[in-house]
């Protein structure tokens, strides 16, 4: 079952093109590990895929202004890429010259992410650099309000149990600012345990600031989720140690 489809995604930051022509097809029980150097645009790509930013609207290449000379220009071999790239993707359909702009599309569970973010994010769980928890609230308060917002019915006792599993026993009623960075991270990770109706996890560097034990249990959680039919798209600087087929996807640094 297809969970996420992305076509022709391009991204521009400060008028520079980070990447274009990215296509992703993610089905159930599939794990894509997105790698790439710092600055290659991994986070930007994930944010586009979940609908936080819009993909760039770019000119389809073969317009009459640049097409012909540019094609010829590409002859010098010394600039040819080190990585062999299938030529197929660059062969744009010929009708591109009539349609001057393309904007990529992302669909999650069959719903367009950018025109209908609310509906598309129903079964999505996005875990970004910013953790989405408030420093002034306690872990329980944070998670309770998050659950209500995401239409998750859960009792306070359930949350406390999950926090206990994550090694936060006794810290449930302290404001988050009194917790260490790793502990705050755990509070935020509890969302993975809470949103049981999710079928897509998009995780941006989930292992940051976690200790070895928790990394293991998180990897275990990811495996369970995959086996239950969920799909995961994640970035991580360290190698994954998950007992499941991993699809690697490399984002090349361009500038």
């Amino acid at each position, binding site marked *: 079952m297809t969970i996420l489809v992305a076509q022709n995604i391009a991204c521009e930051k400060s008028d520079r093109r980070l990447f274009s022509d990215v296509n992703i097809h993610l089905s159930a029980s599939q794990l894509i590990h997105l790698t790439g150097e710092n600055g290659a645009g991994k986070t930007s790509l994930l944010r586009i895929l979940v609908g936080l930013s819009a993909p760039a609207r770019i000119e389809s290449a073969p317009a009459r202004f640049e097409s012909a000379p540019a094609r010829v220009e590409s002859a010098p071999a010394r600039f040819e890429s080190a990585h062999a790239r299938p030529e197929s993707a660059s062969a744009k359909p010929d009708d591109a010259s009539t349609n001057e702009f393309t904007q990529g599309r992302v669909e999650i569970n069959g719903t367009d992410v950018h025109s209908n973010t609310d509906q598309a994010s129903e079964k999505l769980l996005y875990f970004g650099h910013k953790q989405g*928890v408030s420093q002034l609230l306690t872990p329980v308060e944070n998670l309770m309000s998050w659950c209500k*917002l995401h239409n998750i019915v859960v009792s306070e006792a359930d949350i406390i149990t999950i926090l206990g599993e994550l090694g936060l026993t006794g810290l449930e009623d302290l404001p988050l600012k009194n917790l260490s960075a790793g502990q705050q991270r755990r509070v935020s990770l509890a969302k993975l345990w809470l949103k049981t109706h999710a079928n897509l996890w998009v995780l941006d560097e989930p292992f940051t600031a976690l200790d070895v034990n928790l990394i293991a249990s998180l990897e275990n959680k990811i495996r369970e989720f995959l086996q239950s039919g969920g799909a995961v798209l994640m970035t991580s600087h360290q190698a994954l140690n998950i007992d499941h087929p991993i699809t690697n996807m490399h984002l090349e640094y361009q500038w």
Partner: protein
Amino acid sequence: MVTKALLAVFKKDIALAYRQIAELMQPLMFFVLVITLFPLAVGPSPETLQRIGGGVIWVAAILSLLLGMERLFRDDFADGTLEQYILSPIPLYLIVVVKVLTHWLMHIVPLFLISPLLALFLNLSVDMYVALMLTLLLGTPLISFVGAIGVALTVGLHRGGVLLALLLIPIFIPLLIFATSAIESASMLLPYQPQLAIIGAMLLFSVALSPMAIAYSLKVSQS
């Protein structure tokens, strides 16, 4: 389900405001201090104070609300709650409406509580005081809703404070004109319903349009 979620946003914002009560009080103290400056600057004669009183309170109210407004989306933006709002099944503009209204409530209630004192300071008559309250009641939500657009636009900038004032103060000039003119009419025992009606119309207009603009601006700011 939507109501429940919005209620959660409301409760959360109330709890957050309550835990930052000191920060919440700052704009209020600023408001009182600015008003205290005027008698010292223009002289304590009751007639002068009565003549400028309505205007002074309104200018101080606009400035202090602008000061407090910066908080509106700042923390949500910084800690990533905003991202979770966007990626929730609840439409962002509804969440924004709840946030703006909560914020307004938290700022306007203390302002109202302290206003009799200020009316006393500036020698306002009872009629003027009633007019002042009515204009504040209709005008301050307008400030909150329109101001939230500016806040949403500048939330990603680190140096947003002064810029926010620069963007918003010109927009509030019509409100200031109608509000002070209502108070002036009240001081002369003239009817001031027309002014109130105009402020009310502007309020409805802004309530109708600004949530979309705020939601769009927030998305631009965090992209």
